């Protein structure tokens, strides 16, 4: 048991205690004041879910997930399919796709932030192609998408590696049998590749959902939730409530909402990770 001790100590100190703390604070009001505040039951939750601001945060976060998760999945899958082909210099191409993973989120954000400037390199390229320059981060229609692109620059390479590994684990015999049946690429893709890749795909979807719902850095550095709340994701909102506006209890209430969602998703992920044993 001694082997487990450090992990268990960390588990209690770093997970259990703060979660309980958040739960307690979500039921109180005025925790930051000198007297420590008072219990108000579920009032914070009622306030939060009735607040049009928070409803819009949930909507924006939901929209964000609905775009980024399937989007990254499709792009990663296409890339993975390409990168198991016989391509000259394959190793180097894989490295090029994977290398942005090394960039810390703050680096990617700052560099892309400059690229998105009205007179930045992206608009320079558009202008050179005869297209109108785009507003990117200053437009309600494009800001969220711009953030998705910069996050995908880091994320796609990472998920592609999982999918490449998954593709390579599909037994060759299946394709040999399909070749005898005279199947083409599309039929082999639908009847062999996809079904055998199902678990990997599901894993990527779940793991990606978990990491995406916590997106924070680009919002904090580039848009502060704007314009007009169009990039106000839940992590930024709770950070802002807690530290900018000083309403600890409202922030903790959001933490609890987020945790309930994450525990549900993580439970699914754990079952998938663990399935092979049973």
């Amino acid at each position, binding site marked *: 048991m001694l*082997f*487990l001790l*450090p*992990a268990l100590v960390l*588990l209690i*100190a*770093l*997970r259990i*205690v*703060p979660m309980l*703390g958040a739960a307690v604070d979500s039921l109180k009001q005025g925790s930051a004041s000198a007297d420590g505040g008072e219990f108000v039951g579920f009032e914070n939750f009622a306030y939060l879910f009735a607040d049009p601001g928070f409803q819009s945060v949930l909507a924006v976060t939901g929209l964000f997930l609905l775009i980024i998760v399937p989007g990254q999945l499709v792009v990663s899958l296409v890339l993975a*399919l390409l*990168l198991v082909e*016989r*391509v000259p210099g394959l190793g180097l*191409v894989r*490295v*090029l*796709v994977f*290398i*942005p993973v*090394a960039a*810390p*989120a*703050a*680096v*990617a954000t*700052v*560099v892309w932030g*400059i690229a998105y*400037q009205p*007179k*930045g390199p992206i608009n*320079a390229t558009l202008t050179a192609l005869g297209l109108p320059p785009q507003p990117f981060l200053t437009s309600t229609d494009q800001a969220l998408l711009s953030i998705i692109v910069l996050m995908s620059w880091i994320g*796609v390479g990472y998920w592609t*590696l999982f999918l490449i*590994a*998954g593709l*390579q*684990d599909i037994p060759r015999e299946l394709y040999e049998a*399909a*070749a005898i049946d005279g*199947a*083409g*690429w599309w039929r082999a893709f639908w009847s062999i590749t996809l079904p055998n890749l199902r*678990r*990997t795909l599901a*894993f990527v979807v779940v793991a990606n959902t978990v*990491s995406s719902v*916590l997106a*924070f850095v680009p919002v904090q550095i580039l848009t502060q939730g704007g314009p007009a709340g169009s990039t106000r994701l839940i992590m930024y909102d709770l950070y802002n409530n*807690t530290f900018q506006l000083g309403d*600890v209890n409202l922030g903790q209430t959001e*933490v609890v909402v*987020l*945790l309930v969602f*994450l525990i549900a998703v993580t439970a699914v992920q*754990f079952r*998938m*990770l663990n399935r092979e044993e049973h």
Partner: protein
Amino acid sequence: MTALPDAIGTTRTRRVIVGIVAWCAGFAFALPLLWMLVGSFRTGQETFSSMFPLSWRMFVPQDPTLDNYATLLGGEFGLSVANSVFVTAVTILVGLAICAMSAFALSVLRFRGAAFVFALVVLSFLIPFDAIAVPLSNLFREWGLANTYVGLILPGLANGFAIFVLRQFFMAIPFELAEAARIDGVSWWGVFWRIYLPLSKPALIGAGFTLFLFQWGAYLWPLLIGTEPSKVLGPIALANLSGQFEVDFGAIFAGSVLLTAVPMVLLLFFQRYFTASLSATGSKG
């Protein structure tokens, strides 16, 4: 070798097209990094003037200079990178020890409730740390860990993903090895240290990398807990470079290069192991 139906490049033309598309994709991913690298060798004003309109100058510095790096490393940024290196190194060493020990306990030692403990440990550590960072930071401040290295390091030590990968690997090592050693009078500690760890290098490297990426890229936590200038980490210092009254693109690019170069070199070096550990979870999961 005959082409099987999972290959797209079946004819010569198609192979050429696949090759071109793959290379274009790779190039597109690397382009922002290349631009960043070039930008780090020129003055902020030149970066500004070379961005628009589009010209070949965007990727060729007119008047290459190392000033940006000199300025950065001499100032607070240099300290923040040193902090990041220190914090990350300790995290990997201590974190690997903790993760490997618990993975060992959960795979080799047979005790009652092991399955439950395993679920509890991995599940808890799979819940992303950032979600509870805000309440945890309040506790850390009460415990006097704000603005200390211990405070910065602790959250990165235990990682559900790393524990999981290591446990998978340990389970694949024949249990008879451990049994034989136990009969010879070797302690469990000896079994762990002399048999399991040496056999698990790829998994250790993969798990170490997971710990590394987490800690090196961490932003929210150090923003909450490392606010004192002497304890600021690289990513925060980088974000702060553009937050002052004036902004120097040259310095920002140079800082970005410094913060990306370290993981990039490690990644290239250990990529094989990292990929192997991914495939242990992703494909079979």
